[in-house]
């Protein structure tokens, strides 16, 4: 029996003729991390704003632990810890004072607030920066203070918009470990990110949105299988002179829908296929039987980037080429 914490049913948001969100239906169970992925303008922030009670849907329903997000916004604010993509810094304020202020506006009693601030600072490893001015912190430090702020009132659900954005590799690893730790403590997390390999490492479930619609939703493995049915294989040869002959042998068995590509510097042949393990072992056997010296025969695993790009490609080049390129650029960097 799943303990469903966050649920949206046919969530739609229109701004005049523009449909920002089109019948979004997703759900997240307790202790799970949902990766919310999509190109810029896909509707991620709109969906998040509805979930945290900052926006109302045109139609449909969003609930958190059964509480309707648009009808009971004040209750939702206590259930959710929201970290927007902008930190929201104040001048001349120390980290401790900053957290104390947010504790106070959540109505926490002074004594409880002190204890809670100490606890969240320890959890997010921000205790050493408690006397620093908030605006003087580096981006990575601010992100950690941001997480501490969202945890102050001990919410059941954490919604984090681009928490890994602009972080260096070390800070990213720390952030990943922190999010996994929070999930293990029973928190439910919704995380958006453009750094897809990061999400792939922590998410149980992913929702890929494009043009306001859900393009894929479910456990990470299932989404990968449904979006990337063609598995990619690589055959690496010991002798580069045998590349053309190997390609000829493989070509006799493979169909036109399984095109072979050659990389001479790498001594590698690549092909996508839907063939079973048995059929693939027969292919390998055929190569060996023809005295082809195979050094490696391996599957190239598809990742979230491939899934994302396949979704983006479905939207058509005229609509999303730039967005996809922009995102691809971010990933590369």
């Amino acid at each position, binding site marked *: 029996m799943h303990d469903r914490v966050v649920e949206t049913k046919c969530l739609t948001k229109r701004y005049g003729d523009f449909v920002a969100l089109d019948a979004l239906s997703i759900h997240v169970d307790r202790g799970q991390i949902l990766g919310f992925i999509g190109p810029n303008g896909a509707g991620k922030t709109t969906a998040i704003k*509805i979930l945290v009670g900052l*926006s109302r849907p045109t139609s449909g329903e969003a609930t958190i632990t059964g509480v309707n997000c648009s009808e009971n916004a004040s209750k939702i604010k206590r259930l959710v810890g929201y970290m*927007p993509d902008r930190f929201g810094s*104040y001048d001349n304020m120390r980290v401790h004072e900053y957290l104390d202020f*947010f504790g106070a*506006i*959540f109505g926490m*009693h002074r004594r409880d607030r002190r204890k809670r601030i100490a606890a969240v600072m320890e959890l997010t490893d921000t205790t050493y920066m408690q*006397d620093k001015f908030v605006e003087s912190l580096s981006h990575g430090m601010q992100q950690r203070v941001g997480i501490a702020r969202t945890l102050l009132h001990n919410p059941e659900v954490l919604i984090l918009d681009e928490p890994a954005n602009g972080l260096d590799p070390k800070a990213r690893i720390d952030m990943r470990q922190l999010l996994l730790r929070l999930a293990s403590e029973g928190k439910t997390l919704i995380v958006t990110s453009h750094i897809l390999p990061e999400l792939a490492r922590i998410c149980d479930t992913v929702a890929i949105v494009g043009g306001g619609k859900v393009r894929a939703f479910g456990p990470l493995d299932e989404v990968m299988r449904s979006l990337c049915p063609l598995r990619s294989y690589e055959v690496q040869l010991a002798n580069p002179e045998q590349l053309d002959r190997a390609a000829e042998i493989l070509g006799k068995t493979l169909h036109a829908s399984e095109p072979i590509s050659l990389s001479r510097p790498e001594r590698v042949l690549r092909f996508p296929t839907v063939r079973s393990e048995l059929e693939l072992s027969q292919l390998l056997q055929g190569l060996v039987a023809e005295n082809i010296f195979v050094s490696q025969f391996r599957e190239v695993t598809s990742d979230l980037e491939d899934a994302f790009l396949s979704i983006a490609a479905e939207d058509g080049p005229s609509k999303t080429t730039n967005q996809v390129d922009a995102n691809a650029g971010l990933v590369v960097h």
Partner: protein
Amino acid sequence: MKSILFLENPILRRELFSRLRSRKTFLAILSVAILSSLLVLLRWPSDATIDLINQGSLQVFRPVAFTLATALMMLIPSFPATALVSERRRGTLALLLNSPTTPLQIYLGKFAGNVFLALVIFSVSLPALAACYAMGGISLVDHIGPLLLVLFGMAVQYTAVGLWVSALVNSTDASLRWTYAAVLALAVLSIGPTVFVGKLSGTRSLIAHWTTAISPISALQSITGSQAQASEIGISARWPEFLAVSCVITVILAVITLMRLDPRLLERARPTGKVVGRTIPKKPFEGWVRRVSYLVDPQRTKGSIPWWLNPVMVKEFRTRKFGRLHWLIRLVAVSGIFSLLLTVVAATGTVSWGVERIAPTMVLLQVALLLLLGPCLGANLIASEVESGGWDLLRASPISPLRILIGKLMSTIWTLLLMLLATLPGYLVMGYIQPAMSGQVGNVVISLVVAVFMVTTMSACISAFCRTTAVATATSYAVLLSLFAGTLLIWVARGKPFGPLLVERALLLNPAAGALAEMKTPGFESYRLTPESWYIGATISFVCLTILTLRIWRMTRPN
């Protein structure tokens, strides 16, 4: 050289085009055109006869000249004040400094861009000046030419001030605040010492004379034929002296700004903050020195916000540079000392001023301080929260819109009231010297409290409709100066064309005028403004508060 000075300078082209495209510039041009035309229309003689001898044409020319100068003081500083600081915050200053463009080109581009803009704005007042000329009695050489030169001198001087401040500070609103304070000091406070101390002799007289030449007031009075009034209060500088001083100030500030305009400007370390006693061991001597100099140690650990205080109000005080207790104590102390000093001057008879003259001076100084601090405090309330992204965090919290509103307003009202309270000892001493004045002092205090509420609610209301703090600050200053200084300009032009009824109605909008009338300030004796001005002030505050409440309620709703 050509590319440094003229339109080939890419910085100048960009500055000029971007400024001319902005709505702010359009509104500035429009307001100057309307104001100058309206004044000429109102003062145009109904019999339309040519007046070559008497003062009729000067009576039209005088308010036009003072209005143009006031408009220039209000409009021009806002452009250069944001020129360098906004470039630095956007990161484009680093790009400029890393390009082959020299710091001199950058400075001259920005400087010339702002001066050209001032010329464009004031070119729309030329028809009004031409109308004055057409009336007769006004000459190009003695009146219109010198006026245009003084206005040009002001534009150049205030542009240099704005750019200098912009290179010093870290935020656009701080830059606006300090630029307006510097312009006010140059234009008004520079004549203060001479007015207070009276006529001097020898070298001190020479120094006092050149100090008053910093202000355009004396120059404008000499141009508009009011030199006798100026000499009465001890200022006698003429317009060529003002131009000479303007040139010197402009060159000095330009050199200082240019010296700062290099990559070192971008190398400012962010203050990391340190709290003695928790993360850093306490040094007894250092702690003792800080306690003596600050009274409240600024580095001491702040406690948690208690339940009985509005957290938004506490946050506002803590995030304001001058909102921290050690700064508030200084502000209050300076206000208190100054008011007592003035009263002592009156009591000891060092100058031939009585309580009747000191009291209006105190009122004017209090209103000046109120107008200097109030708009920037109020304008910061909502716009800076929206700009920093903090507003979304407040919206995502369960705090009610009413609590946000109360917290924000109270943070400004308390600061301004504390400042007013600090001057009460001065009034008490006055009441002791002249017991008959006690009732008047009470009415003055009420008028000033009404002014505090008006300034706070109006600037907060403006802030709620602006997306950036810089725009909110500039708009607040413009609106409040128009209300407080504009009504006094109408009073200046009393008799012709403004009848006593219109002047009285205009003054009713200004609680400071109510306070001046209570103190029987020369020129205000015939007006009976209280309690009507209190009711009007309270109504304006209430309307602004209602609009602000609705706006905040709307801003906290799911959109």
